[in-house]
Structures are given as C-alpha cells and as structure tokens.
C-alpha cells in the first residue's frame, strides 16, 4: 500500500480533478444504474400484479422450463465473472487476455439471448402471445426489456473489443472497461432478481 502515497492527487484545474473526488464518468454510470432500479422495479411489480390474471390462454408460470432457465441464469452469472476478469487483465496491461475475456463475455451474453428467443418461441407455440393475456404481456415486457439491456451490453463489449484491436484501449483507459462492466454486472443482478421472483417463487 505504500505506493498510494507516491501517486499525486490531481489538484483543481489539473487533468483528472473532480469536485467529488471520484471519476465523473463512473459517477454518471452509478446514477444511471440507480435510476434503472426504478425501471426494473416497476416492471417486476407489474408482473407480480398481473401474473395470476390470465382470463384466457396459458399463464407464463404454466409454461416455464426451470432446468432450461437455470442453465441460462448460470451462463449469465459466468459472464459476470469473465467481465471482471477482462477488467483485471487490462488493469495489468494484458491486452491479449482482456480481448479474450471481452469476447467470451459477449458470447455468453449472446448465448443467454439465444436462450431467451428459444423460450419466447416455445411460449408462442404453446398459445401465449404478447397480447394473449395480461400475465403474458407483463412477462414479455419484463424479460424483453432485460433482453434488450443484455443486447446493448453485447454491443458495448464488441465496441471495447474493436477499440482494443485498434490500440485505442490503453491500460490508462481501463476505466472504460470498468464502466461497461458495471452496466453488465447490473444486468446480471437484475436477472438474479427476475430468476427468483418470476421463475422460482410459485
């Protein structure tokens, strides 16, 4: 820990100085994630409100394939691990390994999205479309919004990968990976909530 004292704290007017003492970009991401709690809270609450109100057609709970969704959840959890390993690699200056972990994270995310598309297709085949009943609408809106977030995360990860390939992602700019990582982990913690509240609790 002695090298902490060696580093010079940026003073007002110098590059890197902020009034809060923390990075503005990271602070911005945390404020965004704080507001996202309200978005997903609303969607989860709406699902809880309508989950047993199907007047016609099957309810989502009648169609769940828990073993399949468990594997999807496992895949997303592991993507959080690969994401943090990508950050750890770039903080060490290991760009090659960082790229490997970024692509692995994106692939795991894509696997999760593929699973979601497969699940939705199965539900539609069993007669639960988006407008079949309110329970189905609430379910598709919640999980669909989450899927869009994962998809945006994949785009961000691939952008980081391309930046790294072009040599525009230096060790000094590792905070960019950290900020994208925060978003990715948030998407993971939201799925932790959805998996328990929507799928597992009867």
């Amino acid at each position, binding site marked *: 820990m002695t090298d*902490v004292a060696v580093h010079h704290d940026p003073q007002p007017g110098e590059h890197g100085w902020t009034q809060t003492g923390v990075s503005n970009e990271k602070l911005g991401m945390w404020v965004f994630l704080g507001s996202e709690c309200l978005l997903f809270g609303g969607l989860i609450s709406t699902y809880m*409100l309508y989950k047993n109100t199907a007047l016609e057609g099957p309810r989502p709970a009648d169609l769940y394939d828990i073993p399949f969704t*468990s594997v999807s959840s496992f895949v997303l*959890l592991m993507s959080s691990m690969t994401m943090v390993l990508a950050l750890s690699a770039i903080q060490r200056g290991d760009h090659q390994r960082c790229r490997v972990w970024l692509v692995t994270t994106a692939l795991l995310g894509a696997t999760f999205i593929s699973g979601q598309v497969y699940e939705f297709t199965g539900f539609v085949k069993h007669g639960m479309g988006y407008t079949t009943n309110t329970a189905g609408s609430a379910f598709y809106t919640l999980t669909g919004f989450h899927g869009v977030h994962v998809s945006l995360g994949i785009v961000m990860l691939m952008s980081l990968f391309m930046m790294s390939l072009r040599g525009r992602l230096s060790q000094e700019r590792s905070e960019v990976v950290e900020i994208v*990582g925060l978003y990715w982990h948030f998407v993971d*913690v939201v799925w932790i909530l959805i998996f328990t509240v929507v799928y597992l*609790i009867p």
Partner: protein
Amino acid sequence: MSAVEHTERHDEGAGHTEHAEHEHTHPSDFQYVMIAVFLAVVTGAEVGLYYIEGLDFLVLSTVLIVLMVVKFVTVAGFFMHLRFDSKLFRRIFITGIVLATFVYLVLLSSFHVFIH
C-alpha cells in the same frame, strides 16, 4: 490497510489515486473465480429448493429471497467493486434500490397483492 481505512482514503482521493489503489485491493483472478463458483452453488441450491415437494410456500419464498439477496450482494460487492470503491457509489445505488423497493411495495400493497 483495513477495508475501512481504504474506503476513507478513497473518499478523500481523486480519480488517479483510485486506479492505483484498485490494483492492490481488488480480489485476485483466482478469488473472482471462487466467487463465481460460490454464485453457481447458490443458484444450484435455489433450483434444488424449487423441486422439493411439500415445502411450505412461506418457507420456500423466504429462503429463496434470502439466497437471492446473498447473490445480489455478492455480485454488487465483489464484481461491481462496491465493497472497495467510494462510499458515494454505494450510497447512490442503495438509494435507488431502497426507493424502488419502498415505492413498489406500497404500490403492490395498495392492490392487495400480498393479501391474496
């Protein structure tokens, strides 16, 4: 340096200092893998509980929610570095969670969701 001392230094310090500290205080790659294994085991336990027949709804729901909170805190604390980063980030995130929980619990209660 203790975790408390570390956090206090973070609050006093600025962006560049944070980076230097991160490299020394964040878990190692091996520890990250161990955390992921722990999360996988907890997920396995959740799924296992789901298949236990005859378990009381209240007991099942309570245990599942506790396990969910354990996973949530683990990911937020270690993977999102909330345990090691500035207290400001923790406060912002917790404010969002508490606000969302309060607002939507009130909403669901007003619709008698928990009574039915």
